[in-house]
């Protein structure tokens, strides 16, 4: 059955090897073209004017002087982006976030934009725009925003998920609940109950490439957009909707992407570029500065989480609950909901309840950041797990093993697990040499677990066989870290041809059906599945051509090792026909040979990880350094092990940065104090050790190769792994992320007192 998704065990020839990636040459020579690397004749430079206030009414915008400046070709405000959202709440939120309508909702919120012949003119023009603001009270802290007298961020938002329906608007946009069993009874049955509260500060994905695009819209309503994005089809749909353009008439081409991690799954200034281009009737190039990326794109939530775990002396958890408060910026989101889903996913619990509160504050609109919402919840839960283990005198790894979810466990968020990797990763950690390595002076060790689901989604793939037998694989999912290599390996595997014969292209929106974005660890999973089906579709055609050539029934033809073979004694005189031969003969047997697949990839497998971390803490200054780090994670099937390792290491590094130093710092007036890489402190090369990785492969039963998405889970455990290591070395339980030296110092001194 061509489109059979069931995992079948097999000996792989191409999958699992480590060939060089096809886009490597362009990237090491500087030839690869990213969002800002293209130019159009007659292009204008676009710049955006942004509110310096956290919350303000926009009383008036006077653009007249800017419009008169020589060299300025278009100036726009929200007037140039009329509301075409037709009642679609999410789309209206996107519209309002792209450009403020009657109120500026955060420091950095766009209020106007210009397009001019060069950057200096555009900068002058911005300065000539006069905005009259009336300052409003603001709120930036998630707990403050939930208080009864907090300034109201969105008067149109009423809390969803509560009964009876509320009569007044609220900063609490949604309440969600997950779990099963009876936690009250469970806590009563416990021998020990531990309750703790935690806070995590806001972090940004920190991709090195700022958002950039080149937009061109003609008076005939046809447009083109070159843009760095994780989902060009999604960007097309959104931009077309906001600008009142027809989807098929807006062609979006994705550039190479310089990092996304979830932050490039939503539009930010692209509709503005299109609107400027339409007004000026010239191409407009818009690049965000680093300052704008921090202030005006989509960081992850800051949170406040309460955890309660009850346990019997024998180590069995009797009940577990959590209240998770996540801010989504000035617009509703499902961030706390995701946190509430993932919080206890690693464990087999009879009684569990998580409640999530999605809260509005005067901060930028939160976007996904690699396993969104899971790292914060994991920090809170995994830290508490260690506290509980300590209370009953049990080793933290053994405690987790005793309570780990397994096949057949009803997860805390609903579905029942198939075969999963949490047990195996814990077992691997237990016997890993890292756990037995001797610690040096002032060093401590911690471990933690993490989980992420993978999404499937709409995927479309074309596989075309050239007349020389080489294969063009056309996909619509963006390659964020080596996917073209993995997909080429999959195509090569299915067809039985060398990897080098396959060329994988990511095409524009005009050339393929809809593809969802690369997020939710779905890239290799979904496009991989779609590639397999497209290849099998092509193989059906190849077999038909062989059958026609031999004039035998097609049921007598099998495809094996790159060749069509006639099976059965009566056909034994027929020599097998290779793909090259069939391709060469295709003009005479029916024309080009191709395969196609369009699916909604389902059956995505969950991916678990356990991490081990050694840190060293200076006893007098609390300077903290990670000295050893190990990632053990289940990949289902590692198509290209180098890139799987790379995902493990990259996610761990981001988690480490978040755990130790990364945070958004707002002042009392609600202005972001550190919108740059100087004071938003991501790890530099000298901050990290080598990051060891161990790939486990527990096949996903719902994917032909057993693939699980791997890109996200590795950011989930580091916060707690480091928190647990700090507890080990400094004897303090850190409850506030990032665990920066002043906070560690303060915790140590309070502990000593």
């Amino acid at each position, binding site marked *: 059955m061509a489109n059979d998704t069931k995992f079948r065990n097999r000996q792989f020839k191409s999958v699992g090897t480590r060939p060089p990636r096809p886009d490597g040459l362009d990237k090491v020579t500087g030839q690869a073209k990213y969002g800002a690397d293209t130019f159009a004749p007659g292009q204008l430079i676009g710049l955006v004017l942004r509110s310096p206030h956290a919350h303000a009414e926009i009383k008036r915008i006077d653009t007249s002087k800017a419009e008169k400046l020589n060299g300025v070709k278009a100036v726009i405000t929200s007037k140039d982006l009329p509301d075409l959202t037709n009642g679609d709440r999410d789309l209206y939120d996107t519209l309002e976030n792209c450009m403020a309508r009657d109120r500026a909702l955060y420091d950095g919120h766009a209020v106007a934009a210009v397009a001019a012949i060069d950057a200096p003119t555009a900068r002058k023009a911005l300065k000539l725009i006069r905005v009259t603001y009336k300052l409003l009270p603001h709120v930036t802290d998630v707990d403050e925003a939930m208080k009864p007298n907090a300034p109201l961020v969105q008067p149109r938002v009423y809390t969803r998920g509560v009964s009876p329906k509320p009569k007044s608007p609220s900063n609490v946009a949604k309440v969600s609940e997950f779990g099963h069993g009876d936690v009250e009874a469970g806590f009563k049955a416990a021998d020990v109950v531990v309750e703790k509260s935690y806070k995590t500060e806001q972090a940004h994905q920190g991709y090195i490439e700022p958002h950039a695009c080149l937009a061109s819209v003609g008076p005939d309503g046809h447009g083109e957009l070159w843009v760095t994005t994780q989902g060009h089809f999604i960007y097309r749909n959104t931009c077309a909707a906001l600008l009142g353009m027809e989807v098929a008439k807006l062609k979006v081409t994705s550039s190479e992407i310089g990092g996304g991690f979830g932050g490039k799954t939503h539009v930010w200034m692209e509709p503005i570029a299109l609107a400027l281009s339409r007004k000026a009737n010239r191409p407009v190039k818009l690049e965000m500065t680093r*300052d704008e990326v921090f202030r005006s794109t989509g960081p992850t939530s800051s949170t406040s989480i309460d955890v309660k775990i009850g346990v019997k002396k024998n180590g069995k958890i009797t009940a577990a609950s959590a209240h998770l408060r996540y801010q989504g910026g000035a617009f509703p989101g499902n961030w706390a909901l995701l946190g509430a889903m993932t919080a206890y996913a690693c464990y087999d619990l009879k009684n569990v309840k998580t409640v999530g509160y999605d809260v509005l504050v005067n901060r930028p609109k939160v976007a996904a950041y690699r396993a969104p919402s899971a790292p914060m919840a994991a920090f809170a839960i995994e830290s508490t797990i260690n506290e509980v283990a300590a209370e009953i005198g049990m080793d933290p790894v053994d405690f987790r093993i005793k309570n780990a979810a397994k096949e057949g466990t009803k997860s805390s968020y609903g579905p029942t697990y198939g075969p999963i990797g949490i047990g195996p990763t814990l077992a691997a950690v237990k016997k890993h040499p890292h756990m037995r390595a001797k610690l040096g002076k002032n060093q401590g060790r911690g471990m933690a677990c993490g989980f992420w689901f993978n999404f499937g989604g709409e995927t479309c793939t074309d596989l075309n066989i050239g007349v020389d037998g080489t294969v063009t694989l056309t996909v619509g999912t963006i390659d964020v870290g080596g996917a073209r290599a993995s997909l080429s390996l999959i195509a090569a595997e299915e067809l039985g041809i060398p990897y080098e014969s396959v060329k994988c292209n990511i095409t524009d929106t005009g050339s393929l059906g809809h593809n969802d974005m690369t997020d939710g660890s779905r890239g290799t999973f979904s496009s991989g599945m779609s590639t397999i089906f497209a290849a099998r579709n092509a193989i059906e055609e190849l077999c038909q051509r062989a059958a026609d050539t031999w004039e035998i029934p097609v049921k007598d033809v099998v495809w094996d090792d790159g060749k069509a073979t006639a099976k059965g004694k009566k056909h034994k005189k027929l020599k097998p026909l290779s793909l090259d031969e069939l391709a060469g003969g295709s003009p005479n047997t029916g024309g080009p040979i191709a395969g196609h697949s369009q699916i909604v990839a389902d059956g995505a497998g969950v991916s678990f990880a356990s991490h081990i971390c050694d840190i060293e803490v200076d006893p*007098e*200054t609390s*300077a903290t*350094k990670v000295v050893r780090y190990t990632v053990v994670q289940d990949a289902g099937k590692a198509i290209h092990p180098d890139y799987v390792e790379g995902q493990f290491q990259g996610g761990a590094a981001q988690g480490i940065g978040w755990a*130790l*130093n990364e945070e958004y*710092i707002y002042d009392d007036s609600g202005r972001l*104090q*550190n919108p*740059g890489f*100087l*004071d938003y*402190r991501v*790890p*530099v090369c*000298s*901050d990290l050790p080598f990051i060891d990785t161990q790939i486990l492969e527990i096949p996903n039963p719902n994917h032909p190769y057993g693939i699980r998405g791997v890109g996200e889970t590795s950011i989930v455990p580091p916060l707690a792994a480091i928190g647990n290591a700090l507890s080990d070395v400094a004897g303090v339980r850190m409850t506030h992320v990032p665990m*920066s*030296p*002043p906070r560690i*110092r*303060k915790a140590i001194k309070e502990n000593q007192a």
Partner: protein
Amino acid sequence: MKYQTPSTTKEAAVLIKRERGKAFVLAGGTDLMVRMKIGLTEPDLVVDIKHIPAMQSIKKSATGFRIGAAVSAAEMGENAPLKKAWPGVVESANLIGSDQIQNRCTVAGNLCNASPAADAVPALIAAGAKANVVGPQRRRTVSVEKVITGPGTTSLAKGEVVEAITLPKRPPKSGDAYLRFIPRSEMDIAVVGVGVSLTLGNNSVIKSARVALGAVAPTPLLVSAAGKAIVGTKLDKAALNKLAEACSAACNPIDDKRGTVEFRTEVAGVLAQRAAKIAYKRAGGK
């Protein structure tokens, strides 16, 4: 914006004095270019001093070292005699930013940018460094600790340009050191910076000492009490404690995105002790 490349210091001074608008010296550009990018500074005139011979070299003489204002931190680190005589001054200059920054930034620029957290300044103050200042009419010499008057402000008049930083002749049995606290391992602005320079007399007893702090007050500070605390000692525990106390007492820091008041105050004392020990060892103290 106008860009000029004068070939003498006096020319540079005159260009700046005459400019009606905003005029800035461009050495490495690692502060000026950043300020221009983020919109804090919009120069009408930029005077590039890197073509002025009097600013381009490091000279050792009987009276000490003269470091031209256009000499990069990387070049200072490649100068063996300078490193030998003033390891603290050189290591502080070499801590400013990445290799990319090091190949451009200058200690004169670091001084004149006048950040309270400037990495090169505490060690220069501790060393007793002076700045040779050239104006359109006259030249003068000023102690480095008198240059910075507040965050971003200096005692230089308009049109005055630093031509060189000089370090005094180094007596034997001298050593200096600079330590700073940063949250990562590189690339951060100092949360606390301490420069210590000392000279030993007989029996490894400290004969003279200067201690300077950075990032814990509106300007870098020369802390006389801290220097006094270790003079006449062999850096025993009591002396070290007095040193730390004197440093903490001199702190007048703020809570900001880089550190808290209590953290800076405490760590200033800790780093002063460590820097003093390193300087002592470098001086040959036992």
